[in-house]
């Protein structure tokens, strides 16, 4: 390539590239914006699940209903976030998130076998949440639960899936 041609080539690239970069900056910024944000949020206060005596040794499924949830531009009341299984262990209650720690599917309590089954990849969990079989890296996640004045207060938390360490999202 001769020198004048090379100069023209470089100038074309510079102009084209410049326009591209200027156009791309706001575009990319917009597209990645939600990645760093808490786009779906609900109050962090514990949820009142009613009197403790309603929970028995066999796990009871409770739906976690957020009084209000903000989903990007929309807000909605009484939205179901997920489910937990609560069972009585002596004097205390044990709450397990129904979110499978493997890839986040909903596990269900299998009454016939007295353990939990995740239908997506057949992970099984014992009554106490411990992993029995299947690909899950850890047992069912225990959720923070308190009994105050005879009433059950549960804090809903999501944990990262697909790893052996229990770590909040």
């Amino acid at each position, binding site marked *: 390539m001769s020198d004048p041609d090379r100069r023209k080539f470089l100038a074309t690239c510079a102009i084209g590239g410049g326009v591209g970069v200027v156009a791309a900056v706001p575009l990319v910024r917009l597209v990645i914006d939600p990645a760093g944000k*808490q786009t779906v949020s609900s109050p962090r206060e514990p949820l009142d699940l*009613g009197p403790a005596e309603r929970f028995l040794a066999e796990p009871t499924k409770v739906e976690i209903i957020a009084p209000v949830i903000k*989903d990007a531009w*929309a807000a*909605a009341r009484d939205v179901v976030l997920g489910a937990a299984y609560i069972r009585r262990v002596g004097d205390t209650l044990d709450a397990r998130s129904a979110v499978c720690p493997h890839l986040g599917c909903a596990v269900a309590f299998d009454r016939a076998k007295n353990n939990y089954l995740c239908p*997506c990849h057949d992970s099984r969990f014992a009554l106490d949440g411990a992993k029995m079989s299947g690909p899950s890296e850890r047992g069912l996640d225990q959720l923070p639960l308190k009994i105050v004045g005879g009433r059950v207060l549960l804090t809903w938390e999501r944990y990262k899936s697909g790893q052996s360490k229990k770590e909040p999202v």
Partner: protein
Amino acid sequence: MNRITAFMRERVGVTGTLEIQGGASFAYVFGKVLVMLLVVQAATGAALAAFYSPSSTDAWASVAYIQDQAAMGWLVRGLHYHGGSALVVIAGLHLAQTAVAGAYKKPRELVWWLGVVLLLLVLAWAITGLVLRWDQHGYWSNRVEVGIAAGTPVVGDTIQKLALGGNDYGNLTLTRFYALHVIVLPALVTVLVVAHIVLARRHGMTPMKSGNAVVPRWPNQALKDAIAMAIVFAVLLAFVVQQGGATLEAPADPTRAFDARPLWYLRWLFELREISGSAEQLVAMAVPAIVGGYLIALPILGRDNKRWLGGLAGLFAIICGLTVMSFVRDASDDDLAKRLGDATMRAGRARAIAKTYGVPASGGQDIWSMAPMWKARTLYAQRCASCHDETSKDRKGPIIAPGHGNRAWIGAFMKAPSSDPYWGKTKLANSEAKMAPVNAEPAQLEALVELIYAQSGATDVDVEKRDRGKGLFEEMCTDCHSLTEGVSGSGPNLAGVGTRAYFTSFISNPKSGVHMGADSSEMPRFDEELSIVERDAIAEYLVWLRTATPVDLNALGPL
């Protein structure tokens, strides 16, 4: 005709005719059929986009509307969904044909690579499309797919956040997948398809037939192409009609387990994960990379080596085998069949409700609240059934069932209040405070029944009988009961018994002096447990039960 052709040629700049060495063949039709299928996807997609609403509240509702209410919506949606499968099948055949013909070899490497990339884009298209329906299938499949992507070392977390549009599934998840599905991927596919075709035409067909006969593409090959397109479209259409279009499960429900299975053409990966145990994350990442790598490397490494083609055939056989294994595994699982049956029933129910009553503005997951008395029945099942349902082992109170509180029920109660269906299971029935059976002539009993029945506000009351009942009530019942509102006695106050307000009051506090009283009631108070709206809903249900039959109850459908 010739003049028009000449006119166009001069202006468009196309000269000469494309020619095929060795003659026209049905082996060459697949590319054209793929273009036809892409056009079908574009046309059906545009029609669907005119109905679809990508938000977490409206997505399922709009798809259900297309499926069950818009004219031929099910057919268009079915063509779009199964058309995606057809794309994968024909793309597979196209790939096989070009591989066998050796069309990946120099100088056609770019054509081959573009084809491989297009195949990947078609799979991405399917994945981004499935989540848009926001039903149990789309939602849970996407959770698994994004979950797998999130397992990528280092960048997994970022990928997940970018895919979901934030920290969790929501409006931004749908708008993102929608933008990918209907703008980004179609634009990319269009550009790459054009490049693929332009390059393929530049190099010409790789002949599969021997001989030097050269025929023009038009009309020899064009006729064969048209026949193939017609056959494929006819098969697609017939399949869609036979299947009743695409499936639509119940709305996405983050609390309810669902047996999420990937689309059939990704089943082999699902099966591979299934059988690879703890190595599954590695397998999920590595195997697609190996298969893709093999296809990319074919033109370079396998240029003059027949064994590479054999390897490709082997790979294809393994993929087919794994796919079959996955379906066989599922088919032999009775528990799974039962769960899928339940899911299908819920889907049908949800769609029937959506069609009849509409989907609430709060979103598909609240669809059940639109069914008559669904909320009340749910609460009843959770909070009342264990003590009041006929089938409950732990029943502690009177049976509540269709016909509860009608004339027959009241009459039988009066004759034997402490019998099993009534107070029989309660402590009250075994105590001094229990009610004595009403000892009266049949005509008197009938009048008393009518009086109590009239309290419910029923419109079919026999006024004369009721008025006779009043006198009898004064004589026989007022030691314990009263019909004057607010008066407490040793037995329940019966003013307005059977009305919605009465039931709400009773459920709120059965231990109240006007109801059972603190000593005679084992039933807990529900005024703190349940909101007034919930108590009222149960009361409405109890009123409904009075005139309902078991058939009516059944017709409300499952919970």
